[in-house]
């Protein structure tokens, strides 16, 4: 295996093997709170992904200019700025959706997983590696949002992609699916978030258990 292949594999590990939410169990607060529908989950997942990609890449580009002691404040400054911009833009462009996500857009700034990425990976790796790894982290996180959102929406509301028009525009309203099942209210209440996450973790463990695992590389607990 060439070094290029192995570092590529390492960079995309956060997509699934080191998934922020499903393997490292970070960023669970927004994940559990907003995933009452797929669309809510997608919106916050995309916002988080955009923030981590820009923040980590910027931190990687700046790594030679910064003393290690200054990295954390600078990372927080970048994250806070990005989150402010994302918050304002989403309120201007997706007003109703922004109302549903409420406090969880501003709270992206304290997502420990994103901060850990901007600090740990970006301070050691090249800009290219960091960009790829941040993309994998962001989309891996989005994957968890979509999976949990879909589970809770199907079981709780019996629909899929309701409110899609808030994200994609009025002409996509018809994409909403009524499955005629579900209506199990607990799925959209907070306990349902934990049940859903537990099932997702069980599913992930089941899928990864058959493959040999490098235990040393599993996550950076904080």
């Amino acid at each position: 295996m060439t070094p290029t292949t192995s570092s590529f594999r390492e960079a995309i590990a956060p997509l699934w093997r080191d998934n922020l939410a499903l393997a490292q169990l970070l960023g669970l607060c927004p994940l559990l709170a907003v995933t009452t529908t797929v669309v809510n989950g997608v919106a916050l997942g995309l916002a988080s992904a955009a923030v981590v990609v820009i923040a980590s890449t910027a931190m990687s580009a700046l790594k030679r200019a910064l003393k290690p002691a200054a990295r954390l404040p600078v990372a927080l400054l970048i994250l806070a700025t990005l989150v402010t911009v994302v918050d304002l833009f989403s309120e201007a462009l997706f007003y109703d959706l922004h109302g549903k996500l409420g406090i969880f857009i501003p709270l992206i700034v304290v997502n420990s997983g994103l901060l850990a990425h901007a600090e740990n990976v970006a301070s050691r790796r090249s800009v290219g590696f960091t960009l790829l790894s941040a993309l994998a982290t962001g989309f891996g996180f989005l994957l968890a949002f979509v999976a949990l959102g879909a589970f809770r929406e199907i079981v709780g509301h019996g629909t899929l992609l309701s409110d899609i028009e808030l994200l994609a525009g009025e002409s996509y309203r018809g994409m909403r699916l009524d499955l005629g099942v579900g209506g199990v209210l607990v799925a959209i209440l907070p306990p349902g978030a934990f049940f859903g996450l537990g099932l997702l973790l069980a599913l992930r463990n089941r899928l990864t258990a058959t493959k040999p695992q490098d235990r040393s590389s599993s996550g950076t607990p904080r």
Partner: protein
Amino acid sequence: MASANGNWALTAVAAAALAAAALYAARAAYDWSDERIAANERARVVARLNSVLEPALRGRDLTTTLLGITDAEHLGSDGPVDVFVLTDRGAPMATVFATVAPHGYNAAIDLLIGVAPIGTVTGVRVVRHRETQGLGDAIDIARSDWMLQFDGKALTSPPPELWAIEQDEGEFDAISGATVTSRAVVAAVKNTLLYFEQHRDELYARAAEAANAGRASPP
């Protein structure tokens, strides 16, 4: 590796430049989105005005006059609350209050309450709320018909002492599992009617005055 990382002077310059860029970016984002957000808020309120009018008035071309009324006791907010007086050739047809129900379960609930000139409720809708998903969010017409029970009610029917939820010996249904939410909304509608009863003539006079001022100075 650590020794390769810059010195303090370089760090200070980089951090200062970044801070300036951050300030600029936040300011630019604010300037870009500020008016769009305000327009979104206005559009949302105006679109919902129709939903609280009596059916015969919906979609009719009425003159809408916006007043800012401050009355924390009745309208639920320490600041001015939007009150829309809708007139047809000077004759008042309806009044819509953007009343706040301050004691929602999680946060204040923003309502729109339509009141006919004779003092009956023509409709109540929630504009913004933070009530519990699956329980208190039944105040949203998209989730349940609970809000429709206010249609046609007035301070005379039921009498003021029955303007409460069943648990408080009143006449209104409460959402099961969301007593606090229900209580907050019923109180807000009642207080709005009380305000309207006491200030109806003043509201209409102010609206007429504002409409006249608007005509005197062409846009």
